[in-house]
């Protein structure tokens, strides 16, 4: 059970950490879903070509960076609406991958990694431990970067008051771009983690994790450590509600909503008791 929770947590956490960075820099990353999907696909491409999981993770990160570069060009250079460009990123990924898939693999559907997938994924317990610890370590690193380094200060300034950065001769766009690319890498790795763990790419395999990642960012109060907690909460209830299908008579379909409901409750409880200050830096939707 714990292993299941941790392995469900990893991709959400990774994607949410990237999103936390962009959110701190003033970009609500609506495109995470598409970035995860892209990472998953290209990791399968790379693993199929090389037989190495590490190559898969790198390829996933690289693909995520590439797509988020497109996204950031749209948002920053063309000044497209962040929200619309994010939705476009998701559409673009879901629409483009089938073509590439047809080219690489001759199918637009499921792509199994050609190599022995248990060798690629490794021993499940060890793998889960490595990824869980790794992603939590990354969370700590992201927290350190955000709160202890000049880079983090600039990122927070880019979200808090970009003018303050601009008048000091530092371009806020540069830090938005950096965080968007980082978020692309993180989401790409999240996708790659799912795909290499399962040894397969399935169309739409991201399955809403990008949105859950956004939830985790806010439930975690935009703080990497809080985001870890939020990801654990969501993953935990997802696994629990799945387990509940096995021992209750409640229809399975109804149980599917439970993780969302519990997270909603957690969000509200947290809002009532846990938070003294308001979420800052979230631009009003009509600006």
């Amino acid at each position, binding site marked *: 059970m714990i292993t299941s929770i941790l392995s469900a947590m990893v991709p959400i956490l990774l994607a949410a950490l990237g999103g936390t960075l962009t959110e701190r820099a003033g970009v609500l990353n609506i495109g995470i879903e598409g970035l995860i999907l892209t990472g998953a696909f290209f990791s399968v491409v790379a693993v199929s070509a090389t037989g190495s999981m590490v190559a898969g993770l790198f390829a996933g990160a690289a693909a995520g960076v590439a797509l988020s570069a497109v996204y950031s060009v749209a948002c920053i250079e063309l000044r497209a609406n962040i929200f619309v460009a994010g939705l476009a990123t998701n559409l673009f990924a879901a629409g483009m991958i089938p073509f590439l898939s047809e080219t690489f693999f001759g199918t637009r559907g499921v792509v199994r990694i050609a190599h022995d997938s248990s060798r690629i994924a490794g021993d499940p317990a060890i793998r889960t431990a490595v990824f869980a610890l790794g992603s939590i370590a990354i969370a700590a690193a992201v927290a350190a970067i955000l709160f*202890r380094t000049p880079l983090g*200060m600039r990122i*927070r300034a880019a979200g*808090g*008051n970009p003018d303050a950065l601009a*008048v000091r*001769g530092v371009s806020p766009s540069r830090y938005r771009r950096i965080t968007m690319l980082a978020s692309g890498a993180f989401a790409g790795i999240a996708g790659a983690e799912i795909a290499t763990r399962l040894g397969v790419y399935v169309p739409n395999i991201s399955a809403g994790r990008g949105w859950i990642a956004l939830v985790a960012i806010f439930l975690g109060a935009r703080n990497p450590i809080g985001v870890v907690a939020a990801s654990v909460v969501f993953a935990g209830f997802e696994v629990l509600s799945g387990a509940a299908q096995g021992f209750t008579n409640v229809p399975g379909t109804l149980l599917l909503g439970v993780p969302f409901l519990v997270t909603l409750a957690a969000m509200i409880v947290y809002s009532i008791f846990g938070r003294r200050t308001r979420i800052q830096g979230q631009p009003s939707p009509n*600006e």
Partner: protein
Amino acid sequence: MDHPHLVLESLCKTYPDNGVRAVDTCSLTVDRGEIHAIVGDNGAGKSTLMHLVSGVVAADGGTVTLCGVPVHGTADSVAHGIVMSYQTPRLVDELTVLENLFLGEEPRRMHVFFDRRAATDRVATLAPIIPKRMLNRRVRTLSSGQRRIASLVAALLRLPTDRPGVIILDEPTEATTIDETAQIVDVIRHTASGGHAVVLVSHRLQEVASIADRVTVMRAGRFVATMASPVSVADMARLMATDDRPTARSAVLDDRVAATEPDGHGLKLVDVSLTDGDRVLLDALTLELRSGEVTGFVGVRENGIEALELLLSGTARPALGHITTANGRSIAPRGRATLRPGYVPSDRTTRGSAQSGTVQDNLIAVERRRLSRRGIIDTAAARRHAQSCIRALGIDAEANWSMRQLSGGNVQKCILARELAASPGVLVVSEPGWGLDSATRSRVHAQLRRVAAEGGTVAVLSTDVDEALEVSDRIIALHAGRIVADLRVGTASRSAIARLVAGDPTA
């Protein structure tokens, strides 16, 4: 090094959104070690000119050169040693003061980490004006005066240490206390004596006269004169005045209706306390504000002025005690049985105005119901109302401009005009003269006195003792949340009040 230090040549700027020619072929040379003041009415183009120098606004034409080297854009000007403290401080609320001070030029530890210790030390040696305990506070929690000082220090720290630079200060002494003002003046003198050029934008003509080496007067985007010290206040005022100003704009709000509460005189505070966590902001205050007079409150903001502003305006409720109008109503921004006092808040852009709205949107906000018929806004009436506000205080803008297109002083005028036009029975004004040119400031003072004369209750909260003395009938000094003095104007000297505010009981 034969080149003159800072040279502006034929700078021009027309804002395309509203076609305003804010800076019109301005040329100027500023020497090393010089304090050069730029004065002019609100909207004259001072801030725009400074923005052209610091590079945040791109000029349409003309050049800026430093020691003979042309400078383009913010990054370039920062690199050349041109630094600026802005009229609205550009600080990041969720960063600490220390982080804000070094943002963009962070000292590093192990190449990666922000070196707090080195940063703190640098502040202590280069800018002792900022108290050490303030450094780890978030900017969000600072008063306007403290923000101004933080902004100034951020600029100071960026000045090159190995060669002369340029520091531009846009209204550095607005909303600062007497002590703070004195410190800032010291810093300016010290910086100039270190060889840097100081360009100072200010409406405090007295101050300008005493510290500037030369003064340039700006009017409607152009330089009208540059004078060397000594310069008299009267000369500056004469040169600043546009020919039509005093008469063509009507001096009063002409569609004022009778005060809404002719019988509801005064405002009573009984045992009012307010705390923030363990901190006592106000301590069992009992006090009556009489109608027909202007009561001025002076004191450092943390000493209770800020809390009092929230209470008098109905924005916050006292933890203990109560505040009522003479006829027993309570005060609040909204509600059936309550009174919304006219209120000019200390934060002009967060609460005082909707920056993404138009000037008209902002001017009709309080009286939107009166300007509507059966739930539909009467556009003609709304426009008339906006126009009359614009005329009343000589706001330098059209009704359909975005608030962002206004100069600093004109934003303040909009807020004042809106609150004055609503004919409030009770009017609470924080820093009435903030950012206003001296002519407008006098006009605003006259308006406040007029509201009182018509039976209104006016409370002025100010860090500027001179202004408080000028506009008030009665002065109340606060220290540590208590009243330390309650005087009729004319019975106490300026310096005595200043000492009271600073907490000196022997005053």
